[in-house]
């Protein structure tokens, strides 16, 4: 790295008469609070961060390049490995892009299964965030609760598609597997359980004095900044913008269900914490309705040509992932493989604001701010 950060400044004429020295602190790439392989080079003066420079690419696998030599069905498992905490939404965005180009009709039952899978995954993703975020700022216990409950969701997914994490569940035109007998009831049971459990979560953490003082007013930004930095999802909603693609540009069958889009105006870490907790609640609400209305029979795959060849042209679709707006751009030349495939990854885009938020902050707030952005490195590096 040839960057001016390597030159530090020594100040001997400080007001206190003490000799202070700027120093470089390397965080990561192998550091638990970065949630993967993310590196931050931080220039600090005492405990105050002067400048932070993110370095990434440690998990870059060239998904977009690889995809150019794969058929559309073959690309789906690669999307599982981008945002591996919420792979269902990744599956969906790719299928949705291809379906949009081809004008395919998705069977009712498949739509429900997709929506249920995506919402369960959103809950699972927020649970991972909740556990690890609190772990970052020093609370060990919540992590265990969160992962215990998330495991139930992963078990449900295991029954649904045979995998706990990398699902490869959706296909262009529908889903690969129908729900096994009794699965819907198990899911219903989980939703009821989770609704109660969520109260325990709040009792355990939300009112905690130390917790509050570590998050209130930390990592603050306003709407204008959020829009300028192309932030999306909770990052954007925490500044008061009521924007959720599930509501505002409905896809799948989200327009059939009642749910709120929680927003806050503070724009700090605390607001983001509350929003994600409220989103779990809303997801459970959607799940409750969807599981209730789940069609008793029907196809799970629509009528799809054997070889998937979207018409020549380009498309860009975006949906709401747990982390924000995930988009998929496909340039097709009418072949069975994409000419160019591009994912708009919310983690990557949201992370851009990190250097700005860290500037002038106390070093101990660094993990709280990074945690509140909720990134997944598989998605940042793609």
């Amino acid at each position, binding site marked *: 790295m040839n960057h001016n950060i390597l030159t530090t400044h020594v100040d001997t004429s400080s007001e206190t008469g003490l000799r202070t020295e700027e120093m470089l602190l390397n965080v990561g790439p192998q550091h638990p609070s970065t949630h993967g392989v993310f590196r931050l080079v931080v220039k600090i003066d005492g405990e105050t961060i002067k400048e932070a420079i993110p370095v990434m690419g440690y998990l*870059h696998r060239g998904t977009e*390049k690889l995809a150019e030599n794969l058929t559309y069905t073959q690309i789906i498992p690669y999307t599982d490995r981008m945002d591996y905490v919420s792979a269902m939404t990744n599956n969906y965005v790719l299928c949705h892009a291809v379906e949009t180009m081809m004008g395919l009709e998705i069977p009712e039952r498949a739509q429900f299964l997709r929506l249920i899978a995506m919402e369960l995954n959103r809950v699972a993703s927020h649970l991972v965030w909740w556990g690890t975020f609190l772990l970052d700022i020093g609370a060990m216990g919540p992590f265990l609760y969160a992962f215990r409950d998330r495991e139930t969701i992963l078990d449900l997914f295991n029954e649904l598609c045979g995998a706990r994490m990398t699902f490869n569940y959706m296909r262009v035109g529908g889903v690969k597997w129908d729900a096994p007998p009794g699965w819907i009831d198990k899911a219903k049971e989980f939703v009821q359980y989770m609704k109660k459990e969520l109260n325990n979560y709040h009792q355990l953490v939300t009112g905690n004095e130390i917790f509050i003082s570590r998050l209130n007013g930390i990592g603050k930004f306003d709407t204008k900044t959020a*829009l300028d930095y192309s932030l999306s999802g909770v990052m954007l909603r925490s500044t008061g913008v009521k924007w959720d693609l599930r509501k505002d540009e409905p896809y799948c069958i989200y327009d059939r269900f009642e749910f709120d889009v929680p927003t806050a105006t503070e724009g700090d870490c605390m607001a983001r914490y509350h929003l994600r907790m409220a989103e779990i609640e809303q997801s459970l609400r959607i799940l409750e309705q969807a599981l209730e209305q789940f069609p008793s029979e029907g196809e799970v795959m629509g009528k799809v040509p054997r070889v998937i060849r979207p018409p020549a042209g380009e498309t860009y679709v975006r949906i709401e992932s747990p982390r924000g707006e995930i988009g998929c751009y496909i340039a097709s030349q009418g072949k069975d493989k994409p000419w160019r495939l*591009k994912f708009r990854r919310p983690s990557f885009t949201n992370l851009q604001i990190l250097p700005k938020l860290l500037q002038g902050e106390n070093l101990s707030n660094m993990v709280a701010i990074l945690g509140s952005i909720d990134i997944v490195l598989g998605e940042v590096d793609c």
Partner: protein
Amino acid sequence: MSDEKRKPTPEEKAAAAAEARAKAESLRKLREQEAQASQEPQEEVSALEVKPVSEMTPEEKAAAKKAAAAEAIAKAKAAKEAKEAAEVETPVAEQQSEAVALPAKPVSEMTPEEKAAAKKAAAAEAIAKAKAAKEQAEASPPPAKPVSEMTPEEKAAAKKAAAAEALAKAKAAKEVKEAAENGADTADSAPDADAKAKAAAAAKAKAAAAAAAKAKAAREAGGDESGDDDAKAKAAAAAKAKAAAAAAAKAKASQATGDEAPAEEAPKAPSKNQPYLDKYVSRISEAFGQEVIEASYINELAKEVPTLTIQNERWHQIAQFLKDDEQLSFEYLSDLHGVDYEDRLEVYYHFYSYKNRQSLAVKVKTSREDSKVASVMDLWHGANWNERETFDLLGIHFPGHKDLRRILLPDDWVGYPLRKDYVQYDEEV
């Protein structure tokens, strides 16, 4: 399912020769009818087809196709029977007619013959309803309703309309034998055994008339629908003409292309985003002149997003304008990336205006050898890393970017992987 996938049964083979002969006959008839149809319901045809076929749902396509298929077959049969009145042939031909009609029909939609009358009534009513709704819609500015906005009832109705008509025609051609089993409408239009040759043409007219009559009855029963009886009669006639046109297209085209044939005929309705596109184009050309917009179109494949191709040299000024102009105010950059088209590179931007709740896609072209696209990082800070990524993987330079260096790949990487001619650099080779 396309027709070519059908397994040819012995009956079909037997009938194939006759069908071929009949096709010529039916074509001639169709031309006559088209000539007729072109006089009366011409404007209805275009009005009914406001919906671009690209937006048709698979069911609608299937239904349209089925209607065409059934009609062609009915005619083929009638013509054949006129030539050889041998009784033995009839069941074979009937079987064939069913065999052809059925594959196109979704299993769930299979209707017993005796339900045809009721179905047709529903269909006619639906057509009338759709027509009335459309007439209302035409009074106000927004253009035709895309299928995605259609209610399930409307979709189902449209489907039924086509299906019911096809059924009625096939039935009429099937003559007296089946009349006893059939519903009311065949009973009053039961053709004579001697009139086989005329049956197809007659049935068509009768079906339309019956449909119109039923539409009237249905509406009177329904009560709450608006629209006059004439509208319904017209709608029925228009639907008939449409089916006839589809049948003609089908007869002309090979079976394999049956799917696309009607699609090419339907005139495209302007997109719901067309007014927005026009607005953007006019705002930009007012400020910068016509020549800065190299192309402007509605991208049907990307949920009808208005798309502009902007002249590379003026891009930064226009980007500023897109962000600052009161009427445009695209304050949000959703995505930015590059594409290598081998003869050129393109940068694709997807903007969103939270104020106007509108999307806009912009493309800027540049050469592969000296690729330069002005950076928009100073306008939308979110472009920062996206431009770096595009530079990293495609080698597009963004003059004006403050910190343009690789972001995902190591700094000493050689080459730009997403370029189509990229070969990985290897020191050993």
